[in-house]
């Protein structure tokens, strides 16, 4: 049975309207409702299903971020993870934390915990980077199965169906492996009350990037964050001739 590491990120809840800070340094996060990145929910769900099928033995949920990241780990525990690790990164360090840092952190933990599978969401809905899984695999020198929409586990290997531009691709990877979860992999469960109660007693270990020997110094500077341009209103044209004229005018025809 495999030991599974799942990366979960705390992001602004997707149903909340995003507002840009007046000084254009970022988006408003203070007092804004956060939750687990939806793709990470899918990742946890997949891990829990593996455990229910007795293909996984232990699930470790990891989150990098400020104290509030523990809420997201608790949610993962409530969904069925066994223990959590909170990698404390706060303040300025958190603002410039990038997949390159996170992947090194996850890789180190994966080695420390002797896991066989690392599952993360394909991307976070705040930065849309879609890099962590790939970089983690590279650091560990493990195979990667990204955009997974189906995962079947054999004894020492997995068969993964990937959603790619051209359609569906099926690949086999030897364990240990890194997987990134895509939308159609599964439908995450709602954590039920008995499990929510149990999760309160599950352990969450706290570490820092330094403890793991990972340098989180910034490698980027955020220059500015702006709203996308306001969409121009449409124009109602009286007839087809006018439409053709406008299209020609705009150089589209």
């Amino acid at each position: 049975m495999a030991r599974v590491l799942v990366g979960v990120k705390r992001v602004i809840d997707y149903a909340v309207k995003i507002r840009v800070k007046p000084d254009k340094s970022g988006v408003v996060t203070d007092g804004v409702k956060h939750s687990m990145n939806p793709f990470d929910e899918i990742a946890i769900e997949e891990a829990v299903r593996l455990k229910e099928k007795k293909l996984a033995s232990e699930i470790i949920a990891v989150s990098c971020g400020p104290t509030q990241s523990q809420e997201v780990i608790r949610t993962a525990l409530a969904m069925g993870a066994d223990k959590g690790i909170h990698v404390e990164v706060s303040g300025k360090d958190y603002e410039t934390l990038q997949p390159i840092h996170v992947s090194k952190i996850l890789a180190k933990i994966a080695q420390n915990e002797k896991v066989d599978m690392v599952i993360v969401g394909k991307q976070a809905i705040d930065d849309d980077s879609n890099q962590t899984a790939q970089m983690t695999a590279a650091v560990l020198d493990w195979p990667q199965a990204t955009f997974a929409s189906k995962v079947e586990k054999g004894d020492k290997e997995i068969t993964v169906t990937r959603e790619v531009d051209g359609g569906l691709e099926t690949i086999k990877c030897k364990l240990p492996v890194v997987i990134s979860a895509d939308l159609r992999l599964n439908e995450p469960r709602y954590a039920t009350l008995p499990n929510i109660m149990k999760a309160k007693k599950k352990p969450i270990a706290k570490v820092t990037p330094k403890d793991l020997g990972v340098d989180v110094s910034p490698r980027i500077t955020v220059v500015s964050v702006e709203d996308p341009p306001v969409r121009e209103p449409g124009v109602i044209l009286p007839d087809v001739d006018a439409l053709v004229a406008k299209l020609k005018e705009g150089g589209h025809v």
Partner: protein
Amino acid sequence: MIKNVWKLPLRISNSTKNNGFPVTKYWIHSQPNFTKNNFNIKRGNFSHVEEEHLYFFRKLLGESRIITDLSDLEKYNVDWNKHLRGASTIVLKPKTTEEVSKILSYCNNNRLAVCPQGGNTGVVGGATPVFDEIIVSTELMNKVINLDEKSGVLTCEAGCILQNMDEFLQQKNLIFPLDLGAKGSCHIGGNVSTNAGGLRLLKYGNLHGNVLGLEVVQANGTVLDLLSTLKKDNTGYHLKHLFIGSEGTLGLVTKVAIQCRLRPKSTHVAFLGLQNFNQVLKTFYKAKQDMDEILTAFEVIDTPSMELANEKLGLGSPIGDYPFYVLIETTGSNEKHDEEKLDGFLQTCLNKNFILNGTVTGEVSKYKAIWEVREKLPQGYIKDGFVFMYDMSFPLENYYKLVEDLREHMGSLSHRVFGFGHLGDGNIHIQISVKEFNQDVANHIEPYIFELTKKYNGSISAEHGMGFLKAKYLNLMKSQESINLMKNIKQMLDPNGILNPYKVLF
């Protein structure tokens, strides 16, 4: 009494060619038959709309704000359930109170019947004409007049859409004290005129308490300025209450001043599965004991309702199948405090076996998804054949009894008898689904259902109002003395009876 069997007209639409053979599509839910043909009711002694009347309206509002095209009129003539169809030939869309005043004054002088209409989301036929009443729509009266951010008093025109108002208030950290499934379409004027209840009544109370003032145009065109924005004002008779809930029969509401509240900082929703209705009640009483001050909604859903959601809407319970489901919403000013109260309450309910299972969340996307299961239920009716829709309130111990009785009473006549609703307010929505309408089934249901409601000490219309469909049953609920007084008030305020005739008072 319904005269004719309601036929389901087949209409051939959008013929598409398939291998040279035209493929025709049949609309099963086409336009209903005219209400005036379906019910045994006589047209009042009103004038018919003539050319000279049209000339007046055109001059007053301009061509763009009157509708006389029959196909454009359909959406105003047919009710939300698609059970009723008026025969109005004209819709007027005033923009100002002055225009409304001129319209009503003119109609009163010329004995033209008027049907005020907001979002046309009513379910008892109160918003659609029975005959050829002139529809006066508040569609274009949709401006916010003033928001006093400090006191939270919003003054707006009657045609403002509820959801728009709440979104506007959200930016100012305030919340509208009313919320219902129809929020994307319903107008404040209509909400006030029907004393709409909704999902937040448990916490915020009803509109009689939250409406601080109104501007109403009377039948003869007199503009009644009752637009106070003061919380307390005991000077003279409280006239606004006459218009709240009188469903457009005593006056046309043109402006509303309403007390809004602070937007809660913390919202949590729990969705629970329970063994039987007794456990639902136990859970409710415990919730009030443990969390009264943060309890915002307490809704119950039975199994057949959830089955409808599964089959027709692709929605389901987030926790699996249980005989009864409860949705609890709490809101407060402190996330930690609320979580503590809620956790303690849920733990107790689990330990004492009040509940079998459940989930709880403070995450926006999750609780919106959970609310969707409850809020979208009415959208499933149109896919379930013909659904007879009822809305009762009961003393809590009788809350679910009528559903159980009805199930037995209907037997194999109905494929689904289901109930759900605002348990916290004692209000249950009861529906009876049949494959298609027929008069015998209708007679089997009414008046039995209303008589049984009375036997259980309930009301035959908790929040939907009497409208057209229930007007004839008023004497089941109110004494002759009170009905007489209502008729006197109507006579005094609308001697020619032009305001929404055939509704409320039969």
